[in-house]
């Protein structure tokens, strides 16, 4: 019987920098994976989100209908949900579009040619917002991106059943 906890990561509206930071844990990853199994992630080949996950790290803001659907599903199947990095925590760079209307943005990016939302990409929400605006978040890990050391501390603490205290080691933007 496996006593390993299940771990997942998802990627919403972000630059993947936080996932890179996860990988930056290098050999410490191997030690972590002795305690946890990575059951779902852009880094592994798994199409559907499992029914029960102990810890899910979320990178990115909620910017589209699809992000919203995904985060609601993930929340319902996750025990401890972690907002990883500034995009998930504050909506960060994706939120820079928020003072503008969706219509204006679409007009601008398509140079006025296609003012309507194209059908083959997810529908944009009015604002890109942080994850906790939509679902309950258990742990917040600010940073752009949070360093590998910070992520390591978060995971070791959570796997050991402790609430991590990050106040002195990470902050918005760093």
């Amino acid at each position, binding site marked *: 019987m496996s006593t390993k906890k299940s771990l997942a990561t998802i990627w919403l509206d972000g630059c993947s920098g936080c996932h890179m930071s996860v990988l930056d844990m290098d050999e410490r990853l191997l030690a972590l994976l002795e305690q946890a199994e990575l059951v779902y992630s852009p880094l592994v080949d798994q199409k559907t989100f499992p029914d029960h996950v102990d810890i899910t790290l979320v990178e990115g803001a909620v910017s589209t209908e699809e992000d919203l659907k995904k985060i609601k599903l993930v929340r319902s199947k996750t025990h401890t949900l972690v907002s990883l990095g500034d995009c998930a925590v504050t909506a960060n760079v994706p939120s820079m579009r928020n003072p503008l*209307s969706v219509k204006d943005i679409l007009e601008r990016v398509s140079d006025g040619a296609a003012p309507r939302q194209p059908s083959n990409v997810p529908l944009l929400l*009015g604002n890109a917002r942080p994850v906790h605006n939509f679902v309950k978040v258990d742990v917040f890990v600010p940073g752009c991106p949070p360093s590998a050391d910070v992520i390591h501390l978060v995971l070791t603490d959570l796997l050991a059943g402790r609430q991590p205290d990050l106040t002195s080691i990470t902050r918005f933007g760093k």
Partner: protein
Amino acid sequence: MQTPQHLDAKNGRIVNLDDLKTIAEQEALLKSQLKHRIFVCMGTACQSCQSADVLDSLTREVSTRGGQAECLVTPGGCQGNCAEAPLVVVEPGGQLYRGVAPGDAASVIDSLKTGPVKRLLCDTTAPFFTEQTRLVTEYRGLVNPERIEDYIAVGGYIGLLTAVTELTPDEVIQQVTRSGLRGRGGAGYPTGLKWSTVAKAVSEQKYVICNADEGDPGAFMNRSVLEDYPFRVLEGMAIAGYALGATQGYVYVRAEYPLAVKRIEKAIAGAQRHGLLGNNIANTQFSFHVEVRLGAGAFVCGEETALISSIEGGRGLPCPRPPYPAESGLWGHPTLINNVETYTNIAPIIRNGGDWFAKIGTEKSKGTKTFALSGRVKNTGLVEVPLGTTLRKIIFDIGGGVPEGHKFKAVQTGGPAGGCIPAEHLDAPIDYESLQSLGSFMGSGGMIVMDDTSCMVDVAKFFMDFCATESCGKCIPCRVGTVHMRDILNKITTGEASLEDLAQLEELCDMVKYTSLCGLGQGAPNPVLSTLRYFKDEYMAHIIDHLCPAGVCAGKGQDIRRPACVL
């Protein structure tokens, strides 16, 4: 007619009590030569109902009949029952006519011989008239506010000349202290104490400011008092100037009150002409000048430090206190700031003594208070009662209760920093302490009655929107907190709020109340807190059932949520 010759010799200057007596006698003589005097109210409400035309047609009617010598038609002040404007009073007899049209002039003049015009007659034996105590609004508008002689005829300026010629500044302050008068701007700080603090401050220059920036929505007592009794306000300020050693006064009045501005400016000119303002008042060393400063539409300027910034010509931003204006106010000098109604009470206190005033009211709240009664009540208008009168008496006896068979729900007092008091507390006496214990505030005297057609969440939202718009933006809790609170209230009234939002609203209320810089922010949460205290069920109905019981946020029984909007 006797001419007061010794006055002419002094260039019209009035310098002692005898001069006042002479003028009063002269006025009495004038009055005795008239058979009738007809007063047409020229207050804001009556003017909006064409009382100027009524005045014109009455004047014309009298002159066509050649009765000018024995019948005087004159502009008068507020009768209080503004809902029945325009109002006309006929003296002697004191018949009060309501809803008078210019076309009624002939009937009114006819009535002088034939008896009252029944269809226009107001029942002055009704509680609205009999249950009031008129101190601030004495002579109920039957003094022409544009004639200083009219004011002198009813005892005007006895207070100032007594103070200046017979009392020491200390004795004046003693009388004010003995009277137990407290600030009528709302907070109820003892006036005598405030005066003695400024008097004790050592400075070559001191200032006296009259706060007439009546900003509370739903309050018009100060407007009415300034329009009707401008001389009394000036007299009170001059007495303060004498007691404190100040030589310069300012009346800071809202530009939205053009009539009040005109009246006070005219009164300043009149008082100057008669030596009751200016240099060497009553031929003593005491000089006192008054200037008008116009507000320009910023509620926060009712806060005394913001008002000072505004008089100095700047943005009306409040400053942390201490130092209080009493020590360092206008241009850094000791400054007294009192409300219009506070100054109005001063002259009678000096004239009749502080003990006389202290007999009226309750143990801790002396005197009377004017209230602007409005909203869902039958007799809207200006009322004055002794402090300690119950809310029930004002709303149901004087106000005549809620019209059209609706049910009383709450009364809002204290403006945007006040609260809504429900039916179960209608028997509470109105004084500074009891209103505060009920989660409201005396404020300057706005009293808005609400019935079952008012949604209390909507009312809270209305006040929060007011505070958010009127916040000066200097301190963060008020600038940002009021916006967040308004947004949450908005979510509640559109059925989008959760219980977590309500919890956050309560948390914001607590934080904004205790961290804001001035009274605007500190008071802003009060309408929410008081409606949450007494009408939480209405909040719950919006949040849980998505219904507005009063049918304001959506029709009765209808879902308040708006159709979903994409993007």
